[in-house]
């Protein structure tokens, strides 16, 4: 059987557009995930048992129990009917992906925060820092450094999960590939190209994150 990868090069700008959207959706949702996840983690650790349980039950465990696809579809199709506001697919995807991934960031950062010795907070307070200053300058950086390996895999997951945006017709790489495969009747070439693009981007990113950790951050962990 002969394959003709010319179809990929002749449609390169269509595919490149998809890559760009994938990049935007991924990076935005990862940023949202880190902000929300870190915030919720701090709240879960420091704002008392009650708040911790509420956030755990209504946010973290809900996101961990329900498939991303299901949440995405629900927010995109059902939520607008309930609240009467339509959102564009791209915004919807970014927010849902960010919230979903944020739950994982939260659990990792929370584990990091809990692993920091009590004495570090005491030492910070003894130097005259406020509670907030101690968390910002002393506790949180250490929690992040300790959590870097799992956070790196979360970043990779964030890029991969962005492919689900295709389900609500966000024109990212996978969606563009589907469209192209349907138009050209050459799904093998198109999907293989997409596979190579994802892998060719994410594999080096994963390696780079590991190298950065080994070289620059492991010495700061104690």
């Amino acid at each position: 059987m002969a394959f003709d990868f010319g179809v990929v090069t002749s449609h390169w700008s269509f595919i490149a557009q998809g890559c760009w959207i994938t990049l935007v959706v991924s990076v935005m949702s990862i940023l949202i995930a880190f902000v929300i996840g870190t915030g919720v983690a701090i709240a879960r650790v420091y704002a008392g048992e009650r708040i911790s349980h509420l956030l755990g039950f209504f946010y973290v465990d809900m996101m961990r129990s329900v498939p991303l696809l299901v949440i995405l579809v629900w927010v995109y199709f059902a939520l607008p009917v309930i609240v009467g506001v339509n959102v564009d697919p791209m915004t919807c995807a970014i927010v849902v992906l960010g919230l979903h991934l944020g739950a994982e960031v939260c659990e990792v950062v929370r584990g990091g925060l809990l692993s920091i010795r009590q004495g570090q907070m005491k030492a910070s307070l003894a130097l005259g820092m406020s509670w907030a200053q101690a968390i910002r300058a002393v506790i949180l950086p250490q929690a992040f450094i300790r959590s870097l390996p799992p956070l790196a895999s979360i970043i990779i997951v964030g890029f991969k999960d962005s492919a689900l945006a295709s389900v609500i017709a966000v024109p990212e790489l996978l969606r563009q590939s589907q469209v192209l495969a349907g138009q050209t009747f050459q799904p093998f070439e198109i999907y293989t190209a997409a596979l190579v693009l994802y892998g060719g981007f994410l594999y080096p990113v994963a390696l780079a994150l590991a190298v950065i950790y080994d070289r620059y951050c492991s010495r700061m962990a104690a």
Partner: protein
Amino acid sequence: MNFDWSALWESLPVLLAGVQTTIVLAFLAMLLGIPGGLLLCAGRRSRFRVLTLPACIVIDGLRATPVLLQLFWLFYVLPLAFDVQLSPYATALLALALNVSVFNAEIFRAGINSIQRGQSNAALALGMSGTQVMRTVVLPQALRRSIPALANIWVSLFKNTALVSTIAVADLAYVALQLRTETYKTVEILTAMALIYWLMGYPQAKLADSLQNRYQVNE
């Protein structure tokens, strides 16, 4: 706004059939994924480059690409490239099992590495052979240590089954999305779907947490 929740009762049998498919699919994928993971792990740890290289390519390649894309690739490429006709169900199972094998392989590898450091010298000193050490000392402990991580893999596998709806396998997500287009009861159907997933997923997530806690104490 009026929602017609009673219509859900009529749809319930269909939804439950979807639930069954979801559960069976996840179960079979894990059943294949454990030996698959061991095989990939053995390949990666092998002394022979002919085995290491393909195992590494499969593991690192699948880890760096979206499951949804892997699913499409298998769905469209298998029939074309290798002239195999698989049903959507079999394709879905293959994709999920492959994906789960890869993640299992990495977990087994970490487990084996963590045991081997201390224990294998002790066993070798007793005069055991390398394979004996692996089979009787290292592997049993490594598998035990892998249990909490495997539980987490199970939780994400169970969620990943929803992806098979995109190639028309009649799992819970698929039947719900079909019902939605047939009945136009978007909010009711989709909320019911989310709720059913939550009812199934929540206990699993909690179980995974408790396994994690239990096994961590033993360290």
